[in-house]
């Protein structure tokens, strides 16, 4: 076995030192009736064989290097410079554990501290933790943190209906045993006034998304007014955002957010079929001792040299056990490292340009699609890189046409989550989409509108 170095001689010598005849003797405390089950698993494979198999499995998937895609809805196809993979492929980073021994973990710790700092700059917040699992669990942790900040006297969370549907679902899963109430998304009334009206003296937190799940942008003034109204009711405001958008737009930290969360995948992490991703979590310094997750702090060593350590760990499960602010142990350290390398490489100019390119291309696509007689772009508000298109027939049918005739992966079908929008598709355009792809999409949509279409109905279901 190539990963196990012991030779037969080693085994003999070691068993002799232990004073037993065989390895079986070491398992005598395992109930005999259940010992050594016959596991029904495939035969072992050599490296050569597994590479061949994995190559074949991977080839069964339609990947975005070969297919043009306009799918977003919480996972984004943004450019990842090669440097990111070069760095996160270093064994020194990816084969280390959580930095419990800071003297030999300064690489991980400094990189995490720099991640915290760069994301603080991006979000306009005072503190950023070392990561949560993803954008959804970060929202759930924000809700729990807000209730802790309010010393459990306020237990209602008001969520906007345009917060990512999966984030709302995860939030409800997390708090189902916690005697908390989640309200606000029963209607599809995407109006801040409705949310503000719902907030009362039991409201711990109001959560909105900006740009929201449907791509729409709220102005900094609208956001500030929301924050003021929420604070006037004694509650806190959490904003779930898109880190790429923050390359261009005023960050939540500048319009009154108390907690900022985001899916950080688009910062240098591949789509990878939904994970591992990166839960960005930022907040105000005054709430640091109620916060969840790992925090890296700056300090000095015995010679006065600058160094970094995990800090404020008395909040955490390994010290505080059942009284911890969260149960989190492993987080998404390597994904946070990827985000840090991405932000350092992109820098202030690169990130702005990524955001601008996404804006221009998305708006070009929206304008061209809106010209089609059968399609209408729904546009109550400005949008960033995603927008909703009302389609003449079910989105699933249109997407099938796009895929089969043009090799285009179409947008997200909103009919499950927002049935009142009808045949609505959420399209996403980033810097990765060329004008040619967008023009093809427009042509394909135009054709897909015209009945009858020859459809493989079985596959469309």
């Amino acid at each position: 076995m190539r990963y196990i170095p012991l030779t037969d001689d080693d085994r003999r010598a070691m068993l002799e030192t232990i004073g037993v005849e065989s390895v079986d003797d070491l398992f005598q405390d395992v109930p005999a009736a259940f010992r050594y089950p016959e596991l029904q698993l495939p035969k072992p494979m050599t490296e050569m064989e597994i590479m061949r198999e994995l190559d074949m499995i991977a080839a069964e998937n339609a990947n975005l290097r070969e297919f043009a895609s306009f799918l977003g809805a919480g996972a984004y196809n943004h450019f990842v410079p090669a440097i990111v993979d070069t760095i996160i492929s270093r064994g020194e980073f990816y084969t280390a554990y959580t930095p419990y021994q800071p003297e030999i973990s300064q690489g991980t710790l400094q990189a995490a501290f720099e991640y915290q700092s760069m994301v603080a700059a991006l979000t306009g917040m005072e503190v950023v933790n070392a990561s949560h699992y993803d954008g959804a669990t970060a929202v759930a942790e924000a809700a729990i943190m807000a209730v802790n900040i309010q010393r459990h006297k306020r237990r209602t969370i008001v969520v906007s209906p345009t917060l990512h549907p999966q984030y709302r679902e995860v939030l409800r899963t997390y708090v189902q045993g916690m005697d908390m109430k989640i309200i606000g998304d029963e209607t599809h009334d995407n109006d801040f006034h409705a949310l503000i009206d719902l907030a009362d003296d039991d409201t711990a937190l109001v959560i909105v998304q900006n740009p929201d799940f449907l791509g729409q942008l709220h102005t900094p003034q609208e956001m500030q007014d929301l924050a003021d109204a929420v604070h006037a009711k004694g509650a806190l405001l959490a904003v779930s955002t898109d880190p790429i958008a923050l390359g261009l737009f005023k960050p939540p930290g500048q319009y009154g957010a108390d907690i900022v969360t985001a899916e950080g995948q688009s910062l240098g992490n591949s789509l990878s079929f939904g994970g591992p991703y990166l839960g960005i979590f930022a907040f105000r310094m005054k709430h640091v001792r109620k916060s969840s997750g790992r925090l890296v702090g700056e300090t000095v060593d015995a010679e006065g040299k600058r160094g970094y350590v995990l800090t404020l760990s008395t909040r955490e499960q390994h010290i505080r056990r059942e009284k911890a602010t969260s149960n989190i142990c492993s987080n998404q350290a390597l994904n946070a490292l990827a985000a840090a390398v991405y932000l350092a490489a992109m820098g202030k100019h690169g990130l702005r340009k990524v955001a601008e390119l996404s804006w221009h291309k998305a708006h070009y696509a929206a304008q061209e699609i809106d010209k089609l007689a059968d399609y209408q772009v729904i546009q109550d508000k400005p949008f960033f890189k995603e927008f909703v298109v009302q389609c003449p027939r079910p989105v699933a049918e249109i997407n099938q046409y796009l895929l089969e005739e043009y090799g285009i992966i179409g947008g997200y079908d909103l009919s499950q989550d927002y049935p009142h929008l009808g045949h609505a598709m959420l399209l996403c355009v980033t810097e990765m989409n060329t004008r040619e792809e967008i023009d093809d999409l427009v042509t394909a949509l135009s054709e897909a509108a015209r009945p009858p279409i020859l459809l493989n109905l079985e596959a469309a279901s």
Partner: protein
Amino acid sequence: MKFDDYIYDLSSPGRTGVDLPEPDVPPTPIPEEFLREDLPLPELSLPQVTRHYLRLSQKNYAVDKGFYPLGSCTMKYNPKVNEWAVRLPGFANIHPLQHPHTVQGAMGLMYELQEMIGEIAGFDAVSLQPAAGAHGELTGVLIMRAAQLARGETQRHKVLVPDSAHGTNPASTSMAGFTAVEIPSDKDGNVHIEALKAALDDEVIGIMITNPNTLGLFESNIVEVCELVHEAGGLVYGDGANLNAIVGIVRPGDLGIDVMHFNLHKTFSTPHGGGGPGSGPVGVTAELAPFLPGPIVALNEAEDAYIWHYPEKSIGRIKSFYGNFGVMVRAYAYIKMHGAEGLRRVSETAVLNANYLQARLLQMGDYPVPYGHRFCKHETVAQGKIAGAEDVRTLDIAKRLIDYDFHPPTIYFPLIVHEALMIEPTETEDKETIDAFLDALDKIADEARENPDLLHEAPHHAPVRRLDEVRAARHPILIRLPSAKAASER
């Protein structure tokens, strides 16, 4: 080693590390009112970025560098072919919301992984969605709660947690809205059966049990523990953190465990990444299968296609999309490379290595091994209490090990062992390495008696000296930006 620059100190106005194309579409004006005034990110060239992170990496210890016997963390070798695999475009560049027909390969891999880990641990159904061990615990406890509620047993609110448990167990219990009740261990390190019996009543949801436990010992009363809890109407949660000791040896599901999380980043060799990403799939009995978080992958046999399936009484989604897919690919490859025989060999060797290490520690005599009268499983717990060096603590021994180029064991855990040194060698270490580690511990014991300050001041040969953690906590500096002062609490 050279003092490293802080990333913002390398910044100069006008630099960038990535060139991006000009827009190939007519531009659309961006309303002024939305724009931010300043974006205080650093400005660096690509060579600077490369050198900065490469030099940072060199200040890390890692499995690829040397022995990392961090107890309960299973720091085994991470096969490089797995890293190759996750970077295949057919895995790395697929969107989670693509139509299932376009991702049958990925879904099939997930399905087969669900089946394989269910088979390995003796469970009927598996959800791959949880992102880490603690996340799996929360999932598992929520499943237990939902199952109890479905039975109409609303009075149950207590979860029993042995005093040797990881801190995540009581923390997950609290997060699920339950009360954690501690159960002491007996003199052999097992769950104290009489204490368990006394704690069992109709308010108990169940027990969270780690087996082998954090003392590295197999719970020899495990079948009885499960029976007692079941008789009281409770459920048994298995913390799979220490599964590396028993793959192919015994299946937790066969012993009476109802729900368990797996740490793919421990047992199944996926890299720890400096603290994640992990993956914490949850396996359950048929009775609990309807409560799993969804979606999971199911096989539609009529159409011979993989489909997304929401278990009918699901506790709900615990994470966006389907879990940490990239980690699943690695675990899949690992299991397929080993097969049943190879996995048993893994556990047998992990246990052999740990017992060899324990036997030699007992022979040396410098470090007490409080449960040394039993064979351990994948790890052994010693104590940093060296006779004749009473002012030397476990922390000093750990820091001195760094000077010998070893990663220290887990220290001060489990909490029930005073001055604990929890040592897990894993199966991927050779005998020479384990011997060298033991020789270092032997020398350190001598040093502790002859020159204790050598230990108190250790490490001497690390990138930094001992760091002031009290200062970091008392006056936290958690970010540093060039324009503003570092944020502080006041």
